[in-house]
């Protein structure tokens, strides 16, 4: 599994021990401590434990310098070896170190003067780097938390909604098997329970997630929608549906939601929250279509059967107008869909588009006509808006003309010779 998506965050997390390691190495060298060992301890121990230990231990080896010439000195030095400045109080008779509140030298018994004004004790080096490290170690996790909260709380995704009466739903449901399953689901309803029922189908394709809900509140009549919306939540978004009870037969509500995680259903009837029993199913119970993207799909060679969860398939490949179609295997179908979806759209200025001055344009003489149809569960269903692609070769380059999913006016994609050869190979067979 690739970790490319979280690389920047991992980089920032790893940056903290690196910064600490550099600081500790330089500081430990100045204090004549075992720099490599302390660097490893401080950088590798989790939660700054090693760093805290180092800060406690290093207190025994102060980083001192002469206040006069600012050269490093040891705590035991009586005078600075470079400039000769007097660093500690000393007995005037035997030159041994003494404390300021002593009145006599403990070694030679000489009387000590009350004040020695020529002493300038060594000063500690100002540690500005430690302040910066502290700011970094507090800011990085704080910013991470803000980023995560922003990601979870301010990315509610999007949703679409439609409603049908029971008769409308079953009239428009093209799949008989799904209609039967929905009827079986309805048979389990308990109108007196005062709860809602929902079927949920999860469609995932790479980073793209779609959730299809079919919701019904039995015994609550043909409810009119008062309010509908999807809002962000701390862990997952919330899908709110506020309805008013008007009596009569029940209705179906179909919701398609795009979000990173399945939204939580929050249903209210006449302003009162009602519980909802959600069942996750392996078919799309709504009348909303799934438009999949095969560009990131991976063919698993070891799989005994190629699983095409996206419920879309190539139904026909026609060499040219009115020529016979060829049958394609599931593997070929997969490669075709993957090539189609990964082909980039060409900008409108490209010469393959007809230009206002009459130049450019394409000529479909000897290409391939690809018809793609939806598959609902196990059945193939043709729709008027099915995908129809023309694949052609022009001046040594290969193009796909895709009229179904035009992208900002761009409807021509650039494809590869391999894709064209694959289509030719299918016809040769």
């Amino acid at each position, binding site marked *: 599994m690739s970790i490319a998506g979280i690389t920047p965050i991992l980089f920032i997390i790893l940056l903290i021990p690196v910064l600490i390691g550099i600081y500790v190495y330089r500081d430990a060298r100045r204090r004549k401590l075992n720099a490599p060992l302390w660097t490893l301890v401080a950088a590798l*121990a989790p939660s700054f434990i090693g760093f805290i230990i180092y800060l*406690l231990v290093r207190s025994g080896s102060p980083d001192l310098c002469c206040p006069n010439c600012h050269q490093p000195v040891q705590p035991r030095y009586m005078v600075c070896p470079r400039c000769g400045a007097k660093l500690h109080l000393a007995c005037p008779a035997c030159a041994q170190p003494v404390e300021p*509140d002593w009145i006599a030298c403990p070694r030679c018994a000489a009387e000590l003067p009350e004040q020695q004004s020529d002493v300038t*004790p060594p000063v500690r080096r100002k540690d500005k780097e430690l302040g910066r490290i502290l700011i970094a170690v507090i800011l990085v*996790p704080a910013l*991470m*938390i803000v980023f*995560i909260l922003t990601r979870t709380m301010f990315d509610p995704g999007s949703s679409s909604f439609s409603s049908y009466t029971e008769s409308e739903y079953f009239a428009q449901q093209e799949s008989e098997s799904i209609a039967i399953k929905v009827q079986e689901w309805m048979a389990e309803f308990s109108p007196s329970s005062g709860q809602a029922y929902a079927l949920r189908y999860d469609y995932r394709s790479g*980073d793209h997630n779609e959730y299809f809900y079919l919701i019904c509140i039995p015994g609550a009549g043909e409810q009119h929608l008062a309010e509908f919306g999807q809002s962000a939540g701390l862990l997952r978004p919330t899908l709110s549906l506020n309805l008013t009870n008007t009596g009569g037969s029940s209705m179906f509500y179909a919701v398609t939601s795009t979000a990173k995680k399945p939204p939580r259903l929050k249903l209210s009837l006449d302003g009162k929250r009602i519980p909802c029993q959600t069942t996750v199913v392996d078919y799309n119970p709504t009348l909303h279509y799934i438009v999949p993207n095969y560009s990131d799909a991976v063919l698993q060679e070891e799989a005994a059967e190629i699983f095409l969860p996206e419920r879309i398939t190539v139904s026909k490949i026609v060499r040219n107008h009115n020529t016979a179609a060829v049958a394609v295997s599931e593997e070929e179908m997969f490669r075709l869909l993957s090539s189609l979806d990964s082909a980039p759209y060409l900008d409108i200025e490209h010469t393959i588009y007809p230009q206002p001055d009459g130049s450019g344009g394409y000529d479909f003489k000897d290409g391939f006509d690809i018809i793609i149809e939806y598959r609902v569960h196990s059945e193939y269903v043709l729709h008027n808006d099915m995908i129809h692609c023309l694949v052609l070769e022009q001046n040594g380059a290969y193009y796909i003309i895709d009229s179904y999913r035009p992208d900002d006016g761009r409807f021509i994609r650039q494809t590869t010779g391999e894709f064209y050869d694959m289509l030719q190979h299918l016809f040769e067979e």
Partner: protein
Amino acid sequence: MKQGLDFEQLTPPVLSEEKLQEKLVQRTVRRVTVLLAAAGVLLEAALIAFGITFAGQYPFLPAACLLHAVLSAAGSSVIAVIFTQKGGNSI
């Protein structure tokens, strides 16, 4: 802590610049330690939130982050015990 000093009964402590600097270092170390401990807790919280957020795309992340948190908590406990037993009050 009693802030006043009875100058008639007690002799005030003799202070030198060295002693004051030592006191300053002790306070700085204490302050930095508290800040680092807080930063460590914050980092663990951020890592756990990070693991949960990306659990969908990277199933190993929550387990890795949890392991990190457990190791950190265990390590911190050991350090706290050693620190207290080895005269942590003097810092």
